[in-house]
């Protein structure tokens, strides 16, 4: 995803002179093309995310479209007050781009895990929260974010994830869920980097005679409530799947909305990380297995729920 982000950024920078990239001393060589093409619009802000975020707000207040970028916990949680006060309170078009959603950097340990960021940023007024499902959605999200006149958070995986789409999805729009695969028996709402895993889960379900609709629910805020209303009416089982804490993420957002609007799901399963730090060494694949977020566990729990 991050290579698509860097490439898309370079492309967008050519047509939009307002676009400025602020990096938190990360992405060695990743932005070489952007730097070569737009040398006066790349700034390495160092390991100083509070300042980077404040600088971005100041730039946005002065007519630019800054993008802040580093590893997820550092570009979100470390500078949360700057995001809240400088960016969201001023309601300025800063795009916050995080690399390493959820357990992408599982092996680096809990300092580098990011399973609470959606909860934090979703709570902030004026903030849009986007969790693209593959590299093509990252490009679409960047384009959509740049067209906004408000703060946007884009939560990416890392690199080398399988591509789900064949091109930039033409019907990608902020706040509109994207159906990736049609199905009749269960609706799987995937957000962010879980999408390939959820498609694998759908394949296992298919082997077991279950037809799953797979949705890239890339916008966690604002929620596509029309889609949800429809999905809960149509499907006996709906599941939300995210590499994020069950507290405050997509599943929580859907639950809040459903409760507030008396939408009673027949059955709703939430997949996410538990209220605990994952302290074991090991890569993302291992962490997902341990936490029941791999395709096999997802499919198993869905099958059980379907009886």
């Amino acid at each position, binding site marked *: 995803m991050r290579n698509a982000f860097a490439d898309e950024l370079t492309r967008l920078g050519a047509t939009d002179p307002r676009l*400025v990239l602020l990096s938190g001393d990360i992405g060695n060589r990743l932005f070489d093309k952007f730097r070569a093409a737009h040398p*006066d*619009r790349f*700034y390495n*802000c*160092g390991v*100083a995310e*509070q*300042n*980077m*975020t*404040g*600088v*971005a*707000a*100041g*730039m*946005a*207040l*002065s*007519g*630019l479209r*800054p993008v802040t970028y580093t590893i997820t916990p550092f570009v979100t949680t470390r500078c949360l*007050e*700057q995001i809240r*006060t*400088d960016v969201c*309170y*001023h*309601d300025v078009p800063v795009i916050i781009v995080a690399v390493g959603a959820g357990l992408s950097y599982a092996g680096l340990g809990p300092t580098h895990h990011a399973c609470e960021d959606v909860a934090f940023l979703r709570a902030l007024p004026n903030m849009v929260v986007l969790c693209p499902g593959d590299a093509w959605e990252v490009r679409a999200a960047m384009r959509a974010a740049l067209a906004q006149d408000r703060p946007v958070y884009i939560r990416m995986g890392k690199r080398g994830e399988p591509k789900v789409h064949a091109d930039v999805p033409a019907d990608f729009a902020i706040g509109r869920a994207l159906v990736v695969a049609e199905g009749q028996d269960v609706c799987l709402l995937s957000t962010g980097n879980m999408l390939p895993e959820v498609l694998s889960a759908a394949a296992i379900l298919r082997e077991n005679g279950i037809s799953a609709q797979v949705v890239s629910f890339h916008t966690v805020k604002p929620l596509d409530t029309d889609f949800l209303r429809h999905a809960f009416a149509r499907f006996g089982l709906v599941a939300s799947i995210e590499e994020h804490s069950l507290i405050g993420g997509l599943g929580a957002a859907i639950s809040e909305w459903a409760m507030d609007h008396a939408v009673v799901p027949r059955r709703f399963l939430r997949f996410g990380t538990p209220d605990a730090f994952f302290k074991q060494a090991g890569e993302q694949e291992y962490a997902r297995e341990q936490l029941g977020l791999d395709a096999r566990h997802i499919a198993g729990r869905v099958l059980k729920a379907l009886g």
Partner: protein
Amino acid sequence: MIAETTLSAPDVAGLKQIAARLRGRVIMMSHKAGSAHLASCLSCCDILAAAYWDVCRIDPAHPDDPLRDRFILSKGHAASALYATLAYRGFFPEALLDTYCTDGALLAEHPPARLLAGVEAATGSLGHGLPIGVGMALAGRIRGERFRVYALLSDGENNEGSVWEAAMFAAAQKLDNVCVIVDYNKWQATARSNETLQLAPLREKWESFGWDAQEIDGHDVGALAARMRAVPNGSGRPVALIAHTVKGKGVSFMEDDNNWHYRAPTAEEVAQAYTELGLA
């Protein structure tokens, strides 16, 4: 539109009179609203007078002019002093000052975001104004707009790590159109600044962070105006003015008495203060 800075010498007498009027107004606002931070306001009135009546290229009729100088009150708790300044300078009617801290008014105890003409940034949480100002200055460079950014910080605000992040970044970027003024009144909310987190030697700290750091009498309006006018000053570095001030300046029984960080004056105390300020 915005005129070039006058080349004549600062009108010291006029600036002093403006500073006295600002002091009177913030004392009255604190009295009426029962609001805190009066002493913090009094220590920076001379700085505000110099900035808004002598230094900054601003036009109250065009508060969003992209070429305007930016003045950011990073010590947002001195909001009433900023409000009085902006009203007296013509950004909004003086009558608005009477609504300070009343239900439903625009003028809260800290400056709001994009709500009030002349307020460049919402501050109140310390350590935010300088990074925002540095971003503005960098935006000006990118966009080819030659404006200056002034950020007024409290000494207690220098406790915040984000101030020093911004200081290092501005120096690395050689943002010589940025000027920090530290209102060094030697007190923070509940204690002597230097006994809380050691600021001293403050000028040397800023200097060592890559700034052209200068000590100055923060109540000398002529000197303040001259130093602030001189930005960018040819050093190729951002400028830090360590302005030695007295908290509660201008009113004998408030000066250097930190109780006035929170206390609001009674009617009798207002009258006495007005007499001392020559406003009675």
